[in-house]
């Protein structure tokens, strides 16, 4: 078994990053010109890293599969970005952000990384404002904050419901500046097909031009993977259609450890599945739970009447409604963390109380918020607070101002007016905490190969807090990787340009070409989506919100069988030398079919419940998740050995020096 060196610097937690930065090797400006870096992916992490590395003087080549770097899925993040600025003077601090993140992650993340994240969080806001990111402001012209689940302070900076978009466009604009200067060479509509190792070091990648199918070789002194998460292994998720695990999986197959694959975040407020045609799920921001109350009917006959269309939810009396989160978790109510809210919804629906045709939906009701706000507004304006129609109208106005764009999006998709009838929501796969294992420097177990953003595993443990994904992506790209990569590249100043005419590149290119040819010549009978949907069903049913040993074992067997069938019977139309979306998808699904099995294996191995990972065998008598700190306070890092089932587990022990490990309770 390989040992993992997390390279955590010595010294007190609060000083580790500062000391580390002061002591690592640097590359002189003249030498940076001699060094090439490849970045795969242009989300918050990839775009910010590309821009910063180019600005430092490295020659950067950046790749994305979309038609423009601005399309990366970070753009879809809605709610906000956390930073320990303490502008509200409500007692926030670096330590508190660090503590909340560790606790929110259910004590399964690396202390030193999370502390560094909290330290650089404030720089992110300064940086983004300087770039012209239009954050929300108050009438005094200063930045506004709002509060998110699982914390006691207001530290979330936001730009209406489009924070991810504005942050990504900020990073994209920083990239544009460097592209204009010729320091970044941008490759749109290019897919990374494999990593090339020379003498055990990452020295380049093989790509496919998605427009004409050309296979290309790109050499570099270091390769940075910033390709996002793998939620699409479930087929249905809030991820973009193109989001995939392939870059991360290819490096895993070349020697990088893959950590905690089973740590997946299932977000409680998504628009439910409407039918078999569904291609993806849409998130409704967590902020809605500030004002919406979640319920299902108490009586099973009411549920039936609703499903048959004979009863409207608004006609159900207050005493016949089960506000199950408020009932089960009186202290936090509707604002329990995401994993808890999701499991509670599943529990009700499994009991038969789901309120749509598929039985997989619960209500998110704004009626009482509308009345509450309406009365306040009537009072402020000196109007009649007993006039029900007026109060409703005023209240709807307030709700519209707060959540208008989300309500509009809901109405477009579901064709129901959420101002008049409760929204229907159901949990959906949203984010993956697991990912490529990295050390403190964000380097994977392959020298010269780095992983940043959602693609790595490092900061969120077993559950991510709202508004922390954007923070991590930008922290890695702007402020961490650009320092730590220099430590490695300092040894490469005399290497010279990487020769791509080497046997290593030949072999990698041939393997890529062989796989493409195999797909094109397969003449199978099932489409790629057929397999992807089947895989998603297995994952959702057996590795979803609640897991047990029996089903996880079944999942491993089923996924393996599905994978074998895929290689025999998949039908990829068209040719290799054209714009061929089916071919690109086939490669991605092939990797999901391997990852899925490792996912199940990891979930099987971790017999405790923690964060988003809930093992039915490990719960309290009230049905709450129960951690097993004695046996599972470690990161599961998997080493590739051919078949996913044969992967070898390496454990990185998690040591908490600053924080006392406690049980999370929201009762």
């Amino acid at each position, binding site marked *: 078994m390989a040992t993992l060196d997390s390279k955590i610097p010595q010294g007190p937690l609060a000083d580790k990053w500062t000391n580390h930065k002061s002591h690592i090797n640097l590359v002189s400006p003249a030498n940076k010109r001699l060094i090439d870096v490849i970045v795969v992916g242009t989300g918050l992490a990839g775009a910010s890293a590309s821009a910063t590395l180019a600005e430092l003087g490295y020659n950067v080549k950046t790749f994305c599969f979309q038609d423009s770097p601005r399309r990366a899925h970070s753009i879809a993040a809605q709610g906000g970005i956390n930073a320990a600025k303490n502008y509200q003077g409500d007692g926030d601090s670096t330590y508190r952000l660090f503590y909340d993140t560790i606790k929110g992650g259910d004590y399964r993340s690396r202390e030193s990384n999370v502390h560094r994240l909290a330290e650089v969080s404030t720089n992110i806001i300064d940086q983004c404002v*300087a770039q012209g990111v239009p954050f*929300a*402001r108050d009438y005094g012209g200063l930045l506004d904050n709002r509060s998110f689940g699982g914390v006691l302070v207001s530290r979330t900076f936001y730009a209406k419901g489009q924070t991810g978009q504005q942050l990504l466009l900020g990073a994209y604009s920083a990239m544009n500046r460097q592209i204009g200067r010729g320091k970044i060479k941008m490759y749109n509509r290019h897919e990374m097909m494999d990593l090339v190792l020379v003498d055990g070091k990452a020295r380049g990648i093989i790509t496919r031009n998605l427009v004409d199918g050309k296979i290309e070789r790109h050499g570099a002194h270091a390769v940075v993977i910033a390709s996002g998460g793998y939620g699409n292994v479930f087929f249905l998720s809030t991820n973009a259609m193109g989001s995939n695990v392939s870059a991360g999986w290819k490096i895993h197959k070349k020697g990088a450890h893959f950590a905690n694959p089973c740590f997946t975040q299932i977000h409680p407020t998504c628009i439910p599945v409407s039918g078999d045609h569904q291609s993806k799920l849409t998130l409704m921001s967590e902020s809605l739970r500030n004002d919406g109350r979640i319920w299902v009917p108490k009586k099973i006959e009411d549920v039936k009447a609703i499903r048959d269309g004979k009863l409207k939810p608004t006609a159900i009396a207050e005493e016949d409604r089960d506000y199950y989160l408020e009932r089960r978790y009186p202290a936090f109510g509707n604002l329990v963390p995401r994993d808890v809210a999701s499991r509670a919804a599943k529990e009700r629906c499994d009991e038969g109380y789901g309120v749509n045709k598929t039985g997989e939906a619960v209500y998110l009701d704004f009626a009482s918020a509308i009345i509450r706000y309406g009365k306040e507004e009537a009072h402020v304006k000196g109007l009649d607070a007993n006039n029900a129609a007026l109060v409703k109208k005023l209240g709807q106005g307030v709700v519209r101002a707060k959540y208008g764009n989300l309500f509009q*999006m809901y109405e477009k998709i579901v064709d129901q007016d959420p101002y008049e009838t409760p929204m229907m929501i159901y949990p959906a796969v949203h984010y993956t905490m697991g990912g490529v294992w990295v050390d403190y420097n964000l380097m994977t177990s392959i020298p010269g190969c780095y992983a940043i953003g959602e693609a790595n595993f490092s900061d969120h443990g077993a559950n991510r807090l709202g508004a922390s994904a954007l923070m991590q992506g930008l922290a890695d790209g702007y402020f961490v990787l650009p320092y730590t990569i220099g430590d490695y590249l300092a040894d490469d100043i005399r290497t010279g340009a990487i020769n791509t005419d080497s046997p290593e590149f030949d072999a990698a290119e041939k393997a890529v070409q062989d796989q493409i040819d195999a797909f094109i010549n397969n003449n199978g009978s099932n489409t790629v989506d057929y397999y992807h949907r089947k895989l998603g069903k297995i994952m959702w049913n057996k590795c979803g919100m609640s897991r047990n040993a029996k089903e996880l074992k079944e999942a491993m067997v089923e996924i393996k069988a599905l994978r074998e069938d895929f290689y025999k019977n998949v039908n990829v139309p068209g040719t290799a030398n*054209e714009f061929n979306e089916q071919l690109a998808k086939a490669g991605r699904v092939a990797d999901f079919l391997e990852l899925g099995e490792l996912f199940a294996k990891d979930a099987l191995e971790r017999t405790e419940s923690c964060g988003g990972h809930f093992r039915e065998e490990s719960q309290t008598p009230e049905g709450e998740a129960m951690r097993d700190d004695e046996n599972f306070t470690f990161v599961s890092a998997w080493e590739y050995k051919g078949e996913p089932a044969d992967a070898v587990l390496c454990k990185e022990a998690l040591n908490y020096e600053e924080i006392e490990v406690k049980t999370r309770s929201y009762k």
Partner: protein
Amino acid sequence: MNLTLKIWRQANADATGSIETYSIENISPDMSFLEMMDVHNEELIAKGIDPVAFDHDCREGICGMCSMYINGEAHGPDRLVTTCQLHMRKFKDGDTITIEPFRANAFPVVKDLAVDRSAFDRIQHAGGFVSVNTSGNTQDANAIPIDKHDADKAFDAATCIGCGACVASCKNASAMLFVSAKVSQYALLPQGKVEAVDRVQNMVKQMDEEGFGNCTNTGACEVECPKGISLENIARMNREYLSASLKG
């Protein structure tokens, strides 16, 4: 729902394309337009016909990748939505739907309904940024208060998703709404004002070089824009450019 689809098919940028007619049955009104296209593609694959290529990614109306010209309108008949958020309930059983790519010489067809919008990227390379280093050593984020109205207007301009519906809808294939949204965002913020003179001139120059048409103020772009970007931005860019040109 049963529908007749008339879809633009073009093998690649150099090929000549044509409209092909297909029929599709049993479409649920709850499907999104792209899900209907998915079903159609599955059927085409089963019949051994090359599936229709189209751009799409997030399918929640924010990435700006989807780009279909449906029944003579960018992103179809609904307002303030992208193609991926358009739902089949907007159509009737028995309808014939014509689907074409966003057309402009500056947006060459890649294949079928997918077009190359990298002209937009190149306009951004010319000046769509604030020249500040990403070192993190900038001043504190609250050092410069910004008038809330200006900040809100800058945000409204910044919500542009770069889909190109403005170009597709404009009878002149003009990119003014796109370019002016970016120019406006920065012109309204103190951080962007520093290099406003150069920015607007460089971006307009690049826009002209890309072969977009001239703006004739028809307002089609504003109506078809899925994010409702206002024509006020174009007026602002007209002002900015005029004053920038006179200054230097």
